[in-house]
């Protein structure tokens, strides 16, 4: 039999297991656990193991006291269990999908209305809002679900909160490749570029506060080409949305439009015809920055080519994906 004074490891183990259990069960479990451990040690010693080693083996076999305590207390060993997890993810998605665009929209509107601070300030504020909203939503939703997981009866822990119903199935047909929201965002972005182009090509109304970046003296046929090709890309996006997926014909039109736009833009950039020749002076006049630089044509051309290649690769990839679908 192991002497009491040798049992400090067992004492510490039993205390670790039972210290967070209620006063009604804790002491009783401690007494029983101590007995069971001593029985195990005795059996090992009888089989010829050294007493100190036997004690260590007995404790190692029972394992992490935290895990054992959770089993005695019937507490979950996870934050959000598999039964709640799908609802947890749905809740996170739904809240983020509404609150993130809302917060970004509010920041942009506020920045535009107040008119103070440059583009950099607004972008910084937008990033701050994005992070803040995401972290807050994730934290509070997790907290609520973890609390629910811990407060409902152990017998119900393998069941979801609300039973799944068929009307939770997505309303859209399974073969749909592009969605309304994504299409709207893309169309909006291209429309924004068109608006900026038209505004710049027409010549800014107030050179004291607005910067003439593009050269308004560009030939009208070039202006029409750059704007018209973008309009064609919008038409392609709408057609893809109406079909539900990319087709080889739409992809071909899109790649052709992309390539045309990029070729024209790069051609004009490299011939120094697209960017207003007096851009540094005009920027300096509006923002009060030094004008001792020239517009970096080559890097801009590289960006234009990169965007065009990415657009072409993406639409071809999606076309192949759609073609493989039964």
């Amino acid at each position, binding site marked *: 039999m192991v002497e009491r004074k040798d049992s400090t490891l067992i004492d510490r183990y039993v205390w670790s297991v039972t210290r967070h259990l209620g006063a009604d069960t804790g002491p009783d479990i401690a007494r029983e656990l101590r*007995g069971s451990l001593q*029985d*195990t040690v005795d059996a090992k010693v009888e089989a010829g193991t050294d007493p100190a080693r036997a004690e260590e083996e007995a404790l190692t*076999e*029972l394992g992490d006291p935290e895990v054992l305590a959770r*089993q005695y207390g019937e507490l979950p060993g996870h934050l959000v269990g598999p039964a709640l997890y799908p609802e947890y993810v749905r809740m996170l998605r739904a809240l983020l999908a509404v609150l993130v665009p809302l917060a970004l929209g509010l920041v942009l509107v506020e920045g535009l209305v107040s008119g103070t601070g440059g583009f950099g300030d607004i972008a910084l504020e937008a990033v701050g809002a994005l992070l803040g909203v995401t972290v807050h939503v994730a934290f509070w939703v997790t907290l609520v679900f973890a609390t629910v997981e811990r407060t409902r009866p152990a017998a119900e822990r393998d069941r979801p909160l609300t039973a799944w119903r068929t009307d939770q199935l997505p309303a859209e047909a399974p073969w749909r490749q592009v969605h309304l929201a994504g299409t709207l965002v893309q169309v909006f972005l291209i429309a924004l570029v068109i608006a900026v182009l038209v505004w710049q090509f027409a010549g800014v109304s107030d050179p004291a506060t607005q910067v003439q970046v593009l050269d308004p003296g560009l030939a009208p046929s070039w202006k029409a080409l750059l704007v018209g090709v973008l309009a064609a890309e919008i038409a392609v996006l709408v057609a893809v949305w109406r079909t539900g997926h990319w087709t080889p014909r739409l992809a071909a039109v899109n790649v052709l439009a992309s390539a045309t736009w990029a070729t024209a833009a790069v051609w004009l950039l490299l011939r120094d015809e697209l960017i207003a020749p007096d851009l540094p002076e005009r920027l300096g006049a509006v923002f009060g920055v030094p004008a001792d630089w020239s517009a970096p044509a080559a890097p801009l051309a590289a960006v234009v080519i990169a965007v065009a290649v990415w657009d072409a690769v993406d639409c071809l990839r999606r076309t192949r994906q759609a073609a493989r679908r039964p």
Partner: protein
Amino acid sequence: MKEDGLLAGHLQELRRGTVVLACLAILRRPHYGYALLQTLDGAGFSVDGNTLYPLLRRLEKQGLLTSEWNTEEARPRKFYRVSAAGTELLDGLTGEWRALDGSIRALTEGEADG
């Protein structure tokens, strides 16, 4: 080697529910925790203490077991035995076990004939 792991995993899955049945059957006579662990082990049910000891508490809380401290010997021990409700559950589980055995037998032998 991989096949052995696969078999071990499925066997563990198959045996999981049988521990309660085996416990209730053994505890028709009173046992304390460690002795029950030994008896189970001897009968071919290798259960870890960290599974069995909390399980006994849970079954007691569900009213399937009753317990009593025996302090007559040098080391006080908590003895468990099945309650009336536990006996009823044991009968139910045993019946289910036999029915399952019959069903599996019918399935596998039917397969052999076909």
